Each structure stands twice: as structure tokens, then as C-alpha cells.
């Protein structure tokens, strides 16, 4: 690595040649505040919060995009720098809706913490005209309040990164606002509901379409039997909402907290993931041996499904007909489980805790009502469930570990890794290879499909069958891969696609981490490690070895892909018009 000598605040440092001043300052132990800058997502140097003095420069420079050069002398904390940053914040506040007390982001707002840190003691310094914006609450998954927007454009960058670009900055000057084409509501444009804009937003402009109150009233209703189940990726992130370091596995505390909230049963979506693998592996083998449409593409990620329906409709026959683990879970709870436990499915309220905002959209799709009522009633994001726990006064960090309820709380390591990119592929390969060889294979770690690279490819020989697989996450990467498949440059049998970059651990429903964390740490990688560690620690690591899975097939579905499993566990997709 080539380095250069620079001076930061009068002291010499040797820093990598290609770094920005912002990155170089880390070597000096200096954290330069940022607002519009979000690494890899929005690097436009627009907000002027990160300004520093550079000797010889005409004016203050934006450190987030300004590259270092040999002999550069930088001052990060002069009176001029401090007063410039403070004035910038005060100007931003001039047109900001400052009702912080009732704001969903109060306490996690990056604008609020900057004002605090940089000593903005007077919020009305420039109390000018404001535009009045209405709320956009048209979608099932999120709410936009442009009165809280500071036009940093992080959401726009996130949307562009997802190859969707349904939001952008409209009009100019004082009238500039973030919106959709022709000022349509978000519901009218081809948004895929991924929520990457929400996790990128520094303020309260973008929020969950919150279902906390609905869930609370279901729990309080004695006529309802309220069942909660939690997705694989949530246990690796929920602790972050309570100040625990990223990557802490809080499975046991989470179960305890949910029980304390008053849910009648606390189950594990991992069981649904194991069930998905049974069906998906069987479908893959069936497609390969019977000349079905290939490559088969995974169907767990509702953001990806919606993306395919809008942008790549020719690939719809390639998508596995399996419902997602969330929907399989809801479907069996209201059919098999309800009749086994003798509970009227109409009394059951299924709540899922998901790292995902597109899941809120998924539950309202067609063909998601196995028992004649919705498979899932409410989806709570990781953030929302944290809110419920805080609201109930539960001291999360000091809770003891508890176990999921039987019989749908039993799961395997294969399901645990669903939350990371490559996990579904690996889980499916573990089961498919045992199904094909009719033995129990010892080699179960498919390391080629792990990791955070954009596109991972591998070829496996299983019982004389050659299997070309690819794993991709993030919709920009997915689009690039699908284009290659379309041009017949590659020949895959099986592709795993996850909507969010890095998979569900980095989902749009996950805890908000400020730019000061995201700019320096790869959260996807840290959180995914937790899931692979959980996989390793579990006694059972293949979906078909899950005893509850064996039970449900013995009692109900008979074999994967049976007529009844098609009725309960499979679904359909439709072409959606982009314009």
C-alpha cells in the first residue's frame, strides 16, 4: 500500500495514498462529524458538516470526499471549522420540523446528536419560511415525512444502489424535495419495499409503517391467541437497539422478552426456514430431473420477488414457488398447528418479527391465505419489537436466556444462516445433497458461497449431478447477474438472490446505525458471523434432521412437493407494470 506523509492538527502521520481526509483523520484518532456522507451510498460532499481547514486551500474543504496528498496540512478543530459546522446545522434547522419530542427518531437522530455535540444551543437562530409537506403513508411498509427531511440524499443513493431509483430530488432551490416521479405517492411507483432508504435516513423523515399498537391490542384481547415468531437475522441484531455491540447473539434474551410482552407462544421462524428448505430442495431436484425451468431462483426475499415482478418479469417462471419462511410459518400455524391444538384459526393472530420492511408488503400479497385467513397478521421490524420491549419497561440486557416454545421452536443450523447472503443456498445444498445421495453427507460447509462478495459462484458434484450455483445480494448486483443469465453467458442451475446487500442481516427493518458506525464498519459481515457461529453451535445442522420437520411431514404433508404442501406452502407471482 502506497502511503503519504501528512500533518493533522500539527502532528505527522503516514496514511494510505488514496484515502480521503475523513479516513485519514481516523489515524489521528479524530472522528470528523458527517451528515450527508454514507460510505458507498452517498458520497456527494454536499452538507458541509465535515469541513476542515487545509493549508493553502481557498476555503474550508469537505473532508468526506477530499483526497489527501503528500505534505498536506490539515486542521480539524479550529474555531473557524467549529463555527462553520455550527452555522450549517443552524441553517438546516431553519426549515426543519423541530418537534423532536414526538419524533420516532428522537434519541437515534443523527441531526439531533450533531446539534448536541457541536454545541447548537439555540434552535431558532434562523427561523425562516418552511415548506409544508403532507405525509406519504400510502405504502404498507413505510411513511415519509418530508417536513423532517434535510435533503441529504442518502435515501436517494440507497434507492439508486438498489437499481430502483423511484425517489429523487424534485424541483429546485427552496422548493427542492425528495419525492417520486410526477409527485405520485410511493405506492404508485415501482418501489420494492426494501427499506434501505429507511436505514440510511439520518432523521425522522423515513419511518416504519408502525404496527406496535395493533400488536399490543391483539395481546390485550383475551379472545385472541397471539403467536410470535422471529426471523433468523433478528437475534443477531436486536441487541444493538439496547446498546449492545453489533454481532451480539441475543436469541435467549429475545425469547424471554417476547414472553414477558405477553405473547401466547414464542416460536422460531427458523422452523419455517427448515420447512422452506425441504420444499425448495425437492423442487430443485424435481426441476433438474424433469426438465423444469432453470436456473431456479430462491423466493425467500419479498423485496427481490417484487423487483423481479416489476423489472425482470421474464424470470418469474424461474422463481421457486415456495412461500417465504415467514409465510410458511403463518400457513402451518393456522392449519396444521391450529387443528393439532384445537384452536380456531380465526382466533389466532400471527405476528412475525422480521429484519425486513418488504415482509409488511408480502403478507398482503395474493395467495397467502392457506387457512382462508391471512397467513400472517402483523409484521414487526427489529426496530419495532425493540420499541415494544422498551415501552414495556423490560430490562433487556439483564434478561436470562430462555428457549423457544415447542414444537415450532426447534430448528437447525441450516435455518440459522438464512439471514446471511449465501445461507439459503448452503442450507438447500445440505438437504439436496442428502436427498440425492440418500445418505447423510459429512461435508456440510459450503464455504464458497459464504462471505460478502457481490457475486459468488461455485460448482458442486452431488451423486453424479453437476450443480452450478450463484449467490448474489443487493438488487444492483442481482440485475447484473440476471442480465448475464439472459445473454446466456453463464449456465446456473440454482441462484440465491437476496434483495438487501449482504442479505437479511443488513435488511431494511434492522436497527438503525449512524453513519459514524456504518462509514467504518461492515455491519453485514459482523452480523453474519454471529449466524454462522450459531450454525456451528447447534447439534442439528441440516433442515431434514429437524425432528419437528419429520413430525409435520409424517402427520400432514407426507412428502415435500405433495399436493397438500402445494396448497399450503406454495404461491404464485404476477407481472407488475413499471409505468
Amino acid at each position: 500500500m502506497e502511503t503519504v506523509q501528512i500533518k493533522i492538527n500539527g502532528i505527522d502521520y503516514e496514511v494510505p495514498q488514496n484515502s480521503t481526509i475523513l479516513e485519514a483523520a481516523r489515524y489521528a484518532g479524530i472522528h470528523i462529524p458527517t451528515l450527508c456522507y454514507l460510505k458507498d451510498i452517498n458520497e456527494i460532499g454536499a452538507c458541509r458538516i465535515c469541513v476542515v481547514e487545509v493549508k493553502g486551500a481557498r476555503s474550508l474543504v469537505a473532508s468526506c470526499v477530499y483526497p489527501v496528498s503528500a505534505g498536506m496540512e490539515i486542521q480539524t478543530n479550529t474555531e473557524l471549522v467549529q463555527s462553520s459546522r455550527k452555522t450549517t446545522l443552524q441553517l438546516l434547522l431553519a426549515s426543519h420540523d423541530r418537534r423532536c419530542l414526538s419524533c420516532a427518531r428522537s434519541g437515534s437522530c443523527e441531526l439531533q446528536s450533531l446539534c448536541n455535540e457541536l454545541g447548537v444551543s439555540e434552535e431558532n437562530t434562523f427561523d425562516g419560511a418552511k415548506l409544508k409537506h403532507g405525509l406519504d403513508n400510502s405504502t404498507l411498509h413505510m411513511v415519509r415525512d418530508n417536513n423532517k427531511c434535510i435533503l441529504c440524499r442518502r435515501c436517494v443513493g440507497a434507492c439508486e444502489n438498489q437499481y430502483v431509483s423511484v425517489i429523487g430530488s424534485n424541483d429546485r432551490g427552496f422548493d427542492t424535495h425528495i419525492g417520486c416521479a410526477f409527485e405520485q405517492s410511493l405506492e404508485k411507483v415501482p418501489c420494492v419495499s426494501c427499506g434501505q432508504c429507511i436505514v440510511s435516513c439520518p432523521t425522522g423523515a423515513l419511518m416504519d409503517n408502525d404496527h406496535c399498537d395493533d400488536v399490543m391490542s391483539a395481546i390485550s384481547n383475551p379472545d385472541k391467541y397471539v403467536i410470535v415468531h422471529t426471523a433468523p437475522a433478528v437475534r443477531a441484531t436486536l441487541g444493538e437497539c439496547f446498546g449492545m455491540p453489533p454481532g451480539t447473539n441475543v436469541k435467549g434474551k429475545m425469547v424471554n422478552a417476547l414472553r414477558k410482552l405477553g405473547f401466547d407462544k414464542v416460536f422460531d421462524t427458523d422452523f419455517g426456514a427448515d420447512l422452506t428448505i425441504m420444499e425448495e430442495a425437492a423442487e430443485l431436484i424435481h426441476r433438474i430431473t424433469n426438465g423444469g425451468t432453470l436456473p431456479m431462483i430462491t423466493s425467500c426475499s419479498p423485496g427481490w420477488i417484487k423487483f423481479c415482478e416489476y423489472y425482470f418479469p421474464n424470470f418469474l417462471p424461474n422463481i421457486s414457488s415456495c412461500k417465504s419462511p415467514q409465510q410458511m410459518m403463518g400457513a402451518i400455524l393456522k392449519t396444521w398447528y391450529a387443528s393439532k391444538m384445537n384452536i380456531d384459526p380465526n382466533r389466532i393472530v400471527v405476528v412475525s418479527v422480521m429484519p425486513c420492511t418488504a415482509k409488511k408488503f408480502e403478507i398482503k400479497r395474493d395467495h397467502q391465505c392457506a387457512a382462508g385467513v391471512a397467513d400472517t397478521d402483523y409484521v414487526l421490524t427489529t426496530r419495532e419489537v425493540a420499541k415494544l420491549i422498551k415501552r414495556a419497561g423490560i430490562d433487556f440486557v439483564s434478561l436470562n436466556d430462555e428457549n423457544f416454545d415447542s414444537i415450532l421452536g426447534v430448528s437447525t443450523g441450516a435455518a440459522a444462516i438464512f439471514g446471511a447472503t449465501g445461507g439459503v443456498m448452503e442450507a438447500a445444498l445440505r438437504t439436496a445433497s442428502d436427498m440425492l445421495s440418500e445418505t447423510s453427507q459429512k461435508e456440510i460447509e459450503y464455504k464458497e458461497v459464504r462471505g460478502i462478495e457481490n457475486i459468488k459462484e461455485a460448482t458442486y458434484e452431488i451423486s453424479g449431478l453437476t450443480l452450478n450455483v450463484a449467490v448474489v445480494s443487493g438488487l444492483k448486483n442481482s440485475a447484473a447477474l440476471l442480465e448475464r443469465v439472459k445473454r446466456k453467458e453463464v449456465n446456473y442451475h440454482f441462484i440465491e438472490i437476496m434483495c438487501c446487500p449482504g442479505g437479511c442481516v443488513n435488511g431494511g427493518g434492522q436497527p438503525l446505525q449512524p453513519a459514524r458506525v456504518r462509514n467504518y464498519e461492515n455491519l453485514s459481515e459482523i452480523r453474519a458471523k454471529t449466524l454462522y457461529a450459531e450454525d456451528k453451535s447447534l447439534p442439528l445442522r441440516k433442515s431434514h434432521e429437524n425432528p419437528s420437520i419429520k413430525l409435520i411431514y409424517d402427520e400432514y404433508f407426507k412428502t415435500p412437493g405433495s399436493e397438500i404442501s402445494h396448497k399450503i406452502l406454495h404461491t404464485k407471482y404476477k407481472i407488475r407494470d413499471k409505468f
Partner: protein
Amino acid sequence: MQKIIGKTPFNGTEDQKKRLQEAIEKHKSDPGALMPILHKAQEIYGYLPIEVQSIIAEGLELSLEDVYKVTTFYSQFSLAPKGKYEISICLGTACYVKGSGEIADKISSILGIKPEECTEDGKFSLTACRCIGACGLAPVITINKDVYGRLTPDDIEGILAKYA
């Protein structure tokens, strides 16, 4: 000012569409193809409604928002159709101090449209413009090529009647 989006139904012809698609083909591989295509589209249709912008977005493999945001940034692009008679009211300094604001209000109230809008029958549209170089006649309006000066709000009804 926020761009006004026209509400009159789109009635583009097949011929117009063909001409637009030729323009897209011609510029498609140029860097910055969007601007010349938008200019051409406005020349063909007179304005850039959602139907026209959708054709452009599809042709250039852009999202509709990527096209729309450009059309709202530059003032030369119009999102509302022009009427058969295009009324321009000068809101430049001289006309404004001579009361062109009240003239604009009067036109708006008679026709039921705000600046940058078009009447439902497609007859009149109203644009606010800056100085047209006839300050001696302030306040001034133009209707297509006709110029009317030294106006009072009471003159408007009679002038519009000529075009009825």
C-alpha cells in the same frame, strides 16, 4: 416555484410517438442523451406529460424519476400543455410595479387557471414571464403574437372575448 403538472388528458398521436422514438434512437448512445431528447420531446408535444416521460425512461433504460427530476429542475421544460392561445403575462420589474400582479389575478379568475396551467378545453394557457422589452407599455401581456399594453384589470374581459 414548484412545477405545475397538467391535468388535461393526454392526446398524443402515433406520428408524435414515432418522431420521439426516432429521437431516442438517435441520441441513445450519446453521453448525456437525456437533455437533447427532452428538448426534442417538448418540441414534438409542446410539453412533457407522464406518458411522454415514460417513453423516454423506457427508451433510455432510466427510472421515470430519473427523467422527471431533470424536467423539474430546468425551467424551460413544461409539464402542462400549452393552450391554443398562449397568454404570457410579464412579471418583470416595470410591469410588476405597474400592477401586472392584479392583471394576472384577473386572468386567473376569469379562466379558472393559475400560471403554468391550461384551461380544460385546451383553449388558453397562462405563463408568467420576465421582461419582454416593452417596459414603456407596462403592464404588458402577449397572446400568441399579439401584444397588449398599458392594461388595467378591466381591459382583460374584452381582450379575452376576442379569442372566444
